[in-house]
Each structure stands twice: as C-alpha cells, then as structure tokens.
C-alpha cells in the first residue's frame, strides 16, 4: 500500500487513474475503521489517495446571486456547525450536530458520508431533501450530478473507479429546513430513522427525505406535492389534517427492514412521528416569521 497526499484535484484524479485499485481517504472514520478491522485490505499495489489537504475540497463558498452554497467534499462536520455556514445550510448543521462524537465530527466529512452511502448517513437526507448536486472530477473532466441519482443502495453509488467527489451545491432556501433522527441511545447513535424537511417558500416546494428506512435515502414525491398544495405559503400555515396526512404518506413510503437496531414496524412509526414533528416545527417557526 502506498499513500499519496494530494494537494489539488488534478493530481488526485491523475493518481486515481494511474492506479485503478486506489481508494480515496478523507477523515478515515469509515474507511480506516474497516481497514483496522481487517474488513478491507487495500491491495499491495493500490494507492490510498488522501484528500484532506486539497484546498478546493477543504473549503466552501456562498454564491449570493445564485442563492447557493457549495461545500467541499472534505469539509468536516465541525466546520458545518461554524457560522456563517450553519445559517446558510441549517438542516445540514442540525444533522452534523448529531454525527458521532466531537472527535468524529472533527474528522468526518460529507464526501465520506456519500462515499460510504449508508442509508443511515446523517448528511444524506439533507442533501436529498434540498435536491443538492454533487460535482465529480475524473481524468475525463468534471461533471455535476444530482445527489439522489448517485445513491443506489447500501454502500452503493454510481461513482466509477477514478471518480473524486469535489463538492456539493445546495440552494440557500427562503423558508424553513430541519433534520431529526431517532437512535437507540443518546451517545454516538446511528440513526434508526431520520427525516429532513425543506419548506421552500419562494418555489412553493416541499422536500422530504427519509434515512434508515430503505436501501438508500428515499424521497416522498406524492406526499410532498400533496402537502405543498395544502400549505398556505403566504402565512405558512396548514390544517392539522394536512400535517397528519403528510406524516402518514411518509410512513407509507418508508421501506424499512428489521435489524439488530430496530424493527421495521417501529421505524415506519418513527418516520410518521418525525415528519409530523418537523412539519409542526417548520410551520411554527416560518409562520411566526411570515
């Protein structure tokens, strides 16, 4: 095993191309756990390409004209909690606050969260609910893909060997956004069910994404459209029935499984509760501001 510490995107993707077995290493909180555990043995002639020194991946920028924020793949959860980024991407900050422990948040990154693509990855429902796009670089050049199109299943993405996640671009939303999760205990919990809700006043659009209740993060298009139609976007209010139906719709879309952390039935129930709770919180906050 050789390790290449990349300092720019171009040298990183060149190296990934030169050694097709290579793996990208960011914070190591998923990858190195697997390596130390013996579950993953990089082949002797594979390279590890460390990206935590690539400035473009370590930084973020706000484009106020486009109303977007672009966050480098190797920005850590702790950095997502710092202002002003936390205010520009509040649901992401909320999700970041629930990841692991301080030491994990100081090392773990959004690029690594997508690279692992666990259905329980806390950053992923936020990216999905916001319709975020991801910029990917390879020796062939750069391309931009919807995050939702990249997530295929547990630990499966459509990333090709040689692909490097560069950054995520998310809209700065006029309205409300929030994240909530249920775990088995308070400390270092992997979500057994999670939801991210976005109420975009300007586009009159509802985005709801569910984590831990399917092979990958799920969106809930039918329930989103119905709730958007039931919402009074001027006053940011909705009938109680509409909120109830929204939660029911989300729970129906969930496709949970039984495992050692929870039962499918409890997960489905939790999705309904989390969805209603977020909707109530969002309408309360946005309604008061309206």
């Amino acid at each position, binding site marked *: *095993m*050789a*390790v290449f*510490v990349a300092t720019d995107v171009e040298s990183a993707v060149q190296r990934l191309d030169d050694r097709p077995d290579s793996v990208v*290493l960011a*914070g*190591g*909180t998923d990858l*190195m*756990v697997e390596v*130390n*555990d013996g579950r993953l043995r990089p082949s002797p002639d594979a390279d*590890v390409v*460390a990206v*935590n*020194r690539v400035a473009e991946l370590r930084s973020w920028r706000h484009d106020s004209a486009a109303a977007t924020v672009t966050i480098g793949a190797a920005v850590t959860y*702790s950095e997502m909690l710092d202002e002003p980024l936390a205010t520009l991407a509040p649901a992401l900050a909320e999700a970041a606050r629930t990841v*692991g*422990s*301080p*030491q*994990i948040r*100081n*090392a773990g990154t959004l690029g690594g969260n997508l690279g692992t693509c666990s259905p329980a990855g806390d950053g992923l429902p936020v990216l999905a609910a916001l319709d975020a796009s991801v910029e990917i670089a390879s020796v062939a050049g750069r391309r931009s893909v919807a995050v939702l199109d990249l997530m295929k299943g547990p630990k499966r993405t459509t990333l090709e060997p040689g692909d490097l996640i560069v950054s995520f671009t998310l809209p700065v939303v006029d309205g409300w956004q929030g994240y909530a999760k249920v775990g088995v205990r*308070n*400390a*270092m919990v992997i979500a057994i069910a999670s939801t991210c809700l976005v109420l975009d006043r300007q586009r009159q659009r509802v985005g709801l994404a569910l984590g831990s209740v399917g092979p990958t993060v799920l969106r809930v298009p039918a329930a989103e459209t119905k709730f958007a139609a039931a919402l009074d976007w001027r006053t940011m209010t909705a009938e109680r029935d509409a909120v109830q139906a929204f939660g029911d719709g989300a729970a129906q879309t969930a496709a949970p499984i039984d495992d050692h952390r929870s039962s499918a039935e409890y997960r489905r129930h939790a999705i309904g509760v989390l969805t209603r709770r977020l909707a109530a919180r969002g309408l309360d906050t946005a309604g008061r501001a309206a």
Partner: protein
Amino acid sequence: MNVTLTINGTAHTYDLEPRTLLVQLIREHAGLTGTNIGCDTSSCGACSVHLDGEAVKSCTLLAVQADGADVTTIEGMASADGTMHPVQQAFMDEHGLQCGFCTPGMVMAASSLLAENPSPTDEDVRIGLEGNLCRCTGYHNIVKAVLTASGADQ
C-alpha cells in the same frame, strides 16, 4: 515516506511505512505511550489527541495525513515545570479515574471541550465526552472533574 510534524512543541521528522497510523507514530516512533489504543476502530476514544488544536481519534488517521500538523498528546498537557494541566489536576482531585486506561483520552477530549465551551453544564460535559468510553468509573467522577476544571479555568 517522510512525515514532519510538531508533537508537544517539538518538531520531528520520521521515515515511515505509508500505512503507519498516527497513533503508531506517537507510541512507537515518538515513544509517547500515554496515548492508548483501546479498540482501533474509532469507538473508545482512548487514542484521542489534539491535531491542530482539535480533538481527533489517532487510530483512524494515517500519520502522513498529519504531515505539517501540530499534535498535542497527554504528555504535552502539563507545564514544563511539572505543574499539571487543570483538567489533569481535577481528574486527580475528583477521583476521575480508576484503572486510568481511558484517562489520557478523556483529558484530551475534556480539554478540547473546555476550550470550546469554558463553562459547560453537566449535560454539555456528557455530550462532549460521548466519544470516550470508561469501563471503570461509571462517568460520574469524570463529569465532576471536568466541571471542577471549568471552574479552575475561569
């Protein structure tokens, strides 16, 4: 591969196998064995050190990822004259340790927590230390020690 870094204020350069972990550099190459390895899968926090001022688990970082960085280990916490860091002193005063295996990691995580939040509540301390496991104390005296240290810091 050459790795140059500062540990507890002193610059070092090592020629290492690329796959060397940061915790191996610290323990085996720098000879600083205060940093413990409890799990090597980023779960227990025994290997916590400060990397450029922030607490991280050194068992899941490669040493080369710390090239050019400033690392502080438990050995770097006391002053040169031997006066213990307020967090170390508080762990002693409040009996925040029994076997002591988790203590270096606890002290590193706690001092990082206090740097960010100088007057934490009991709850803040418990949340701030959730990445550090202790199989002896039941945490009560550890939390007390951190709260005591926060008073000493003010």
